[in-house]
């Protein structure tokens, strides 16, 4: 089949959403399909720009081209699913959360001005049109499916994407807790730094980069000997960190999905997360595959200490997670998307 996978691209930013779309293209090609990534730069500030961006996708007509037809388009996150095509499937990574669950929170972007309120509503209307056109809607997690039902009244099938294809392995269970995430306020890496401050024996390694780096480094002042900022790491370093850590910390606010727990599990490592982390809670169970605690530095410190102090427990929880992660495959995803 000739398939176009659509995703917006915030220039110079590469995260989980980009990874999923890119891998999907690769996996489709491996299976003999003629797949192509369609990416359009995305800019959401100032607020009304978000509608321009949605319109740009709307104007991209892939329903027919000169020459061979495109058999299927797969939209991923807002506003790429606005593209027009008679055979459109949406694999929803997320809607524009600033217009929904983030609205009127510290993560929102729309003020109480009449123009901002009307812009938010226009996003809602766009979703209503664009998503209802889809032949089928899949979501990357139950969390995203739940939000879609709540905000747009639409049902979806949950289809978690597999983690990136790296040589995940288990080497050792060293005495550090690893964070793998973009350095962004919503990822709440400061809670792990605060936990390290509260627990003097705790050592942490923070992989990733992002706009919150400076603030986080300031937060780690005075405990630099136990808080390592590894920055953006290559695949080899990443798998090495996973292979050597004792546990992985991952606790964003109501995350859509969270690929990191799957990568931790494939490396045989348990995950520490919080009750309000969203997607990760679909695979991280307290005492089964990791620790689920309140979003509080003290609680996180205690969870880290528990796993650092009990090697057997870390191994047992990590191994249990590995069997869960192994069940998520590209074969299953592609079979569902093309059905």
């Amino acid at each position, binding site marked *: 089949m000739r398939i176009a996978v659509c995703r917006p691209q915030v220039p110079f930013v590469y995260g989980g959403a980009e990874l999923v779309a890119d891998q999907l293209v690769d996996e489709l090609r491996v299976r003999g399909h003629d797949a192509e990534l369609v990416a359009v730069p995305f800019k959401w500030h100032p607020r*009304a720009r978000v*509608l*321009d961006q*949605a*319109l740009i996708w*709307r*104007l991209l007509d892939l329903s027919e081209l000169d020459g061979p037809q495109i058999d299927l388009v797969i939209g991923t996150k807002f506003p790429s699913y*606005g593209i027009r095509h008679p055979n459109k499937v949406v694999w929803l990574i997320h809607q524009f959360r600033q217009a929904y669950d983030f609205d009127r929170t510290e993560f929102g972007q729309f003020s*109480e*001005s*009449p*123009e*901002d*309120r*009307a*812009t*938010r*509503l*226009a996003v*809602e*209307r*766009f979703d*209503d*049109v*664009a998503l209802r056109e889809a032949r089928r809607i899949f979501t990357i997690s139950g969390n995203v499916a739940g939000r879609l039902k709540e905000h747009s009244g639409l049902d979806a099938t949950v289809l978690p994407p597999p983690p990136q294809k790296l040589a995940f392995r288990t080497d050792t269970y060293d005495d550090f807790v690893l964070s793998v995430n973009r350095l962004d306020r919503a990822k709440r890496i400061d809670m792990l730094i605060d936990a390290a401050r509260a627990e003097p024996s705790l050592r942490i390694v923070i992989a990733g980069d992002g706009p919150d780096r400076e603030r986080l480094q300031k937060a780690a002042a005075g405990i630099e000997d136990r808080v390592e900022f590894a920055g953006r790491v290559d695949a080899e370093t990443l798998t090495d960190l996973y292979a050597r850590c004792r546990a992985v910390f991952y606790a964003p606010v109501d995350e859509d999905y969270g690929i990191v727990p799957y990568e931790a599990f494939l490396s045989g490592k348990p995950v520490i997360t919080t009750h309000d982390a969203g997607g990760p809670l679909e695979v991280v169970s307290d005492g089964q595959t990791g620790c689920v605690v309140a979003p509080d530095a003290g609680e996180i410190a205690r969870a880290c200490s528990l796993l650092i102090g009990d090697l057997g427990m870390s191994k047992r929880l990590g191994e249990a997670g590995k069997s869960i992660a192994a069940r998520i495959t590209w074969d299953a995803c592609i079979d569902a998307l093309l059905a």
Partner: protein
Amino acid sequence: MKVAYYSPMPPDRSGIADYSALLLPALRERVADVVVAQPGKKAPDADVALYHVGNEPVFHGWIVDALEKRPGVVVLHEAVLHHLVAGLTIGRGNGRGYLDAMERDSGVAGRLLGLGVLDNLLPLLWETQPERYPLTGTILDLAEGLIVHSSYVARKAREAGYAGPLWKIPHPAWPIEPVEPAAVTGEPLIGCFGYLNMNKRIPALLEAFAMLLERRPGARLLLVGAAAERFDLDRRLERLGIRGESLIRHDYVPEDQLWSLMAACDVLVNLRSPTMGETSGSVIRGLSLGKAMLVSDVGWFSEIPDNVALKIPVDRHESATIAGALELAADHAATLGASAQHYVRSEHDLRHVADAYAAALEMAAGGDAVADQVLWRISEAASEVGLEDTSELFRQARGAGLV
């Protein structure tokens, strides 16, 4: 966003006051600032004003005065405003205003009819045939957006020439507290609550109940509400033999007793014709209680799903149809009641209603500005690359809900 909210409020004895008392707390959870305007006080400064308009001049006169000074979103609770307009014109010594309103609705013929009314040559139209001359036009001319509760009123507004944005938002249902049914029974017990007059089809109901009594001697009719002046209720009851054990009659009951009496009924009857397009809070309350219900097949009542209420056509067979429907409803009271409760929970849920109000107000306050910005940027980008015909771009933007 700041909203100026114009409505009668309790303790005014008005259905719209009760409506606003129910809606306001939920709306305040969704809109940053809602200021309730007061009659005789300075109009609140706001991004958008919301005006609840019903047919009673005492409660809505000052609201229309405010609307004339500052257009805004109108909630049209009824499709007929003749009584209101007459009160605001003739009632204030402004006969010319009445003539203008009649001409706005019905052309020169309307103006001439109005002259007949002013000269006491014709009966008062707001008492005799208001539905033929609804006089909504002058109010709709001031509306920048319109909220209605039914497709019926929406259609009437469009017929009156309203071309602006329109939102159909259901009437919210009151939260239901557990109600202990009153200790009254019948086989079946038929209840009719509210002002008893010709408009409520009481003569047809009484004739139908008399037919039912012949087939089901254990049937009882519970009539709660004052009879209208010049409506000979007692004589009609006597003539039809509805008396003694088969009749329970209350002129007035307090609110809590009203609920428990309603809860005791097997079937509730809420007929209405002609309709002024109103939504009945009483019907919604009855459905909330999970009661089998008979309504007239007119206006908003026709829009209630068939599996929720039995709808009685207003024709020469009306009494016989009601009699048959009473039996049918009594025999299927549980099924109808369950459908009724499900319908009210899904369609008249207060949270959904408040969400829809907030969205309508947000659109009214900022929608045009946002649409203008998007369309301006489209035009600008198109003209920079020499595209003059941007109609396709506009069409796509509109089709995708972006403007």
